[in-house]
């Protein structure tokens, strides 16, 4: 699950980079950048949750 969270972080970043490099319209670019950041936040939450579970199992 932690790996999934980290991969989601990278996926969100890829959306942001693609939006900046490929989209000509300012509105679409801003929308996709915000969507990419939202994916990153979801990935971060998942990675944190996985870390908490792993830590609790370790104890």
């Amino acid at each position, binding site marked *: 699950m932690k790996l999934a969270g980290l*991969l989601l*972080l990278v996926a*969100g970043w890829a959306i942001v980079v693609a939006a900046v490099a490929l989209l000509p319209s300012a509105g679409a670019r801003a929308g996709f950048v915000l969507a990419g950041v939202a994916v990153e936040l979801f990935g971060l939450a998942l990675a944190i949750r996985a870390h*908490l579970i792993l*830590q609790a199992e370790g104890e």
Partner: protein
Amino acid sequence: MTPFVAPSLPTLSEVSAVFCLLLILLVPFAGAGLALINSGLGRARSAAHAMLAALCVTAVAALVYAIAGFAWQGAGGRPDHALVVAGKAWGWIAAEPFFLRGLRLDLSPAALVVLLQMFSVGLAGLIPLSSGADRWRLGAICASTALLAGWTYPLFAHWAWGGGWLAQLGANCGLGRGFVDGGGSSTIQVVGGVTALSITWILGPRRGKFSAEGLPAAVPGHNVVLVLLGCGFAWMGWTALNSAGAMLFLGVEPGRVVLIAVNTTLCAAASGLTAAVVTRVRFGRPDASLSANGWIAGLVASSAAAAFLKPAAAMIVGGVAGILVVSVADFLEFQLAVDDPGGAVSVHAVGGLWGVLAVALLADAGPGGQWLAQLVGIATLLGFVLPLTYGLNWLLDRLYRQRVEREGELQGMDLFELGAGAYPEFDIHGDEFLQR
């Protein structure tokens, strides 16, 4: 991939270059300040280890950066590799030779960048030290710093400071001036801060820090005097760092250094006082350690925008940083079970992210679209730098265990790794105040 020349650094007159050099020579005080803070917030039985680790980090960072780091980072106006996408060239990595070959080390802007970066990368390397205090082996600290100075830091610094794709967001996409960070809120502080988060995740908490029910125990720092002295050193170093960075990377004229120094000071003052007030309200008394962390968080947050803020806005940036540092430190410890003895994640990662965002919200940094450029920078720090630094340190941990043995934690890092303590004439307390 095409050879490319990154957008140029500003030209400096000889007087401006000497002035910039003098500022850069003050930057190591920031590192000395962080080293004192890290040592003071750790246990007495690991104090010598913390100071030696700081020295080793500074040395490894300078060596690795000179050998390979600058080759990846480069500087504006120097060779670069670029990817051409939709007809636009995006610089992604520098094309410099290793060992600083081919670079005249004189008063040229590129040479000043090298000197500033050798100090800055050491500063970034010192940040994770506080999160791994009392349990991070010295050999692993050096290896992790080599990864930071040789790869993670130079890559992001190239994008933001070396004329790379983040800096080009203004020219290529019309997003304000492109990603703006004059003094390193992102390149130094957030990169160091997310590395600190990776280190706490990989090392795990100190023995006895969390009870079986998950409640954290307070493990007080051993010397608050060192911590507060470190704040003074850091103030001087940070003012110089913000000023030199703004001259070299944003092209501000030397006369604006006064504004930068005023804003840096106001930001730190507002943040430190806000943290003192917040802890006074929450705990009944102001907390010296958290107030010191508030002071440093203010310095961290000031770095990105100090050249563009009005003094009143600098106070707002500092006030918000002071609130954030106390709240996030609590949240990390109580909700996320992150054992970060020096508060590196809340001070440097969160404070730095807030500083980057403040450029868009409060600074007069130029034409519209700046907020999106800053957001793309933040997305890169979270979505690229955090997974990269976590992955590299996870791999390192598989090859060379980073956490000290159980015996080392019980004995203290000083005796276990160095064979001698920092305070041989004093009794060092054990773990009697920790939960069993």
